[in-house]
């Protein structure tokens, strides 16, 4: 099976879907001539030209809204946000327009659009360029929200997102673009709303999504050395949320730690922790733990920024608490 980088998996997904459906266009800052700020769109402008791969001015609200209007009228745009930090400029368009147009019109419109780009902290970027905003988008009915941790998931989820008739927010990460993994040469899709068991286990359920999946898997390997068999659930889709997969796993292990790099207050992580407490109350042998980003803006200094994020050590400590070790 071919082994390719995460950015190239995304590139393949866009390329294949553009070839498949001429209504699919890519629009955003630096996506065309520059080949993408993170090279996700490399080669696509050469292949599809100015009409379908469209460079925009630095106007997030404007080009996001233009994408939504084009989707209302029948195109299937992929809007690239250079990072999710800048997507805040366009939040009104996403929340007030993309998410609500179908509802407010009594079902007259479909909004087939994908908003995508890197979310969450990278390195040495300070507060305005390092924030994990999954909770903001996941809060909003009318949107679908997905987050891919591996090249395989990135390609399968993005292809499905492009074919979906609803607005889908897809979160990637700067630090994921270079990672490599198996991606089949044959076409495949991954349904939105399906979690993936990245590592099966019996003793404790670790629920997470996005970039930190890799950190959680590393923590699980460390636990294995102490004969603690952790199950790692990668949510992949935050909205809709695969509650069945969560409940099935915690029913089996009776212990749960949720890991989310976002701030801890009113987050996807805190919601999932509540859900587990609510749905699995009779099965739990310990309190549900949440390992989140610290409740502060991101500092610049590298030691400080690492301290502000989840870590293998923090995950291990939380697992010890739920196992009463």
């Amino acid at each position, binding site marked *: 099976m071919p082994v390719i980088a995460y950015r190239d998996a995304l590139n393949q997904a866009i390329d294949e879907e553009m070839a498949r459906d001429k209504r699919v*266009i890519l629009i955003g800052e630096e996506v065309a001539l520059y080949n993408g700020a993170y090279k996700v769109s490399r080669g696509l402008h050469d292949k599809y030209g100015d*009409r379908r791969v*469209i460079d*925009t*001015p630095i*106007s997030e*609200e*404007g*080009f*996001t*809204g*233009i*994408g*939504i*209007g*084009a*989707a*209302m*009228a*029948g*195109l299937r*745009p992929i809007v690239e946000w250079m990072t999710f930090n800048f997507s805040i400029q366009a939040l*009104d*368009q996403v929340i*007030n*327009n993309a998410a609500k*147009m*179908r*509802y*407010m*019109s*009594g*079902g*007259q*419109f*479909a*909004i087939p659009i994908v908003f995508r780009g890197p979310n969450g902290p990278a390195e040495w970027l300070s507060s305005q360029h390092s924030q994990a905003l999954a909770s903001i988008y996941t809060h909003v*009915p*009318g949107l*679908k929200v997905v987050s891919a941790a591996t090249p395989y998931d990135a390609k399968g989820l993005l292809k*499905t997102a492009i*074919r*979906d*008739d*609803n607005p889908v927010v897809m979160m990637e990460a700067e630090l994921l673009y270079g990672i490599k993994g198996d991606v089949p040469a044959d076409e495949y*899709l*991954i*349904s939105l709303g399906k979690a993936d068991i990245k590592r099966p286990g019996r003793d404790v359920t670790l629920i997470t999504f996005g970039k930190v999946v890799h950190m959680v898997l590393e923590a699980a390997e460390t636990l294995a050395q102490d004969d603690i068999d952790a199950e790692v659930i990668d949510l992949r889709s935050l909205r809709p949320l695969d509650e069945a997969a969560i409940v099935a796993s915690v029913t089996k292990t009776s212990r749960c730690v949720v890991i989310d790099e976002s701030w801890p207050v009113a987050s996807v992580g805190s919601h999932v922790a509540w859900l587990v407490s609510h749905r699995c109350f009779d099965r739990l042998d310990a309190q549900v733990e949440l390992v989140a980003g610290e409740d502060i803006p991101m500092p610049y200094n590298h030691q400080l920024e690492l301290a502000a994020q989840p870590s293998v050590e923090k995950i291990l400590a939380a697992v010890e608490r739920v196992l009463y070790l």
Partner: protein
Amino acid sequence: MAKGNAKKQTRYSKDLLNDLLERMLLIRRFEEKAGQMYGLRKIGGFCHLYIGQEAIAVGAVAAIDLKRDYVITAYRDHGHALAVGMDPNVVMAELYGKITGCSRGKGGSMHLFDAQRHFYGGHGIVGAHIPLGTGMALKLKYMGEKGAVLCFFGDGAIHQGSFHEALNMAGVWKLPIVYICENNQYGMGTDFRRVSAVHDLSALSASYNMPGKQVDGMDVLAVYESIKDAVALVRAESQPSLLEFRTYRYMGHSMSDPATYRTKEEVLKQKEQDPILILKKKMVADEMLRDDEFQQMDKRCKQIVAEAVDFAERSEQPAIETIYEDVYSEEQQCP
């Protein structure tokens, strides 16, 4: 300027003028009734009436072909909905929040839509629909369709970033759209001159490399001609433009606004420029309309509006279960 002179001498058909007059009158009577029903608490929430501005929606829509062209506007949208030919029953039912409303009682006064008639709303956040209209124009150009988008907004929207961002991209990409500023002179309670660095709002078009023009928005024929010209520019060269129609709303910003920021004298003076009276006067002078014919027309409009109220009254409330409908479109099933 032979072309300009030719325009001035244009004789309009009686059918066209009758149609313009009757549509304006229908909107006027519909809005009066909506205000009345709001007072009786049959209609709730925010309700922004279009009285005084009828010439703009009516004149503009009469100048386009809704089979290929599109209309989008803000929350003062009853007039545009009726101008594109939406059934007054369905519009009134939506104001009532009934299941028979165009948006199944989920949109209300600010969110009227008719996708079939290419009427794309009905939008509640000031200026935020201007990028949407621009995206609709991108779709037309991308698909090689020969349509135009009429994107309406008020003078209050013109200082939002969304306006400037969207017009810039329309200017760069030469999108087939006509931006229509209905300058009714007050953004809610604020005189536009107090918050705008320039008082000729059409001048903003220069920043985005498109023609701009100020037009008398109380003269339905002036509106009609200027939109014809702007749409011709779109069809011939895919050239967007910005039109500022000077107009005046007779009522407050919404039903809850007593409009104490304007004097009675100012409002009365403005009402002398009433768009319906201007056209009526012209038609009478040209011997195209008799007073009794006007009375007949008015009677018809009142009858249509009365029927709309009756329809809305008789319609069912939406079932509670419908709250979960229309959130997402049908799932695309993956193999």
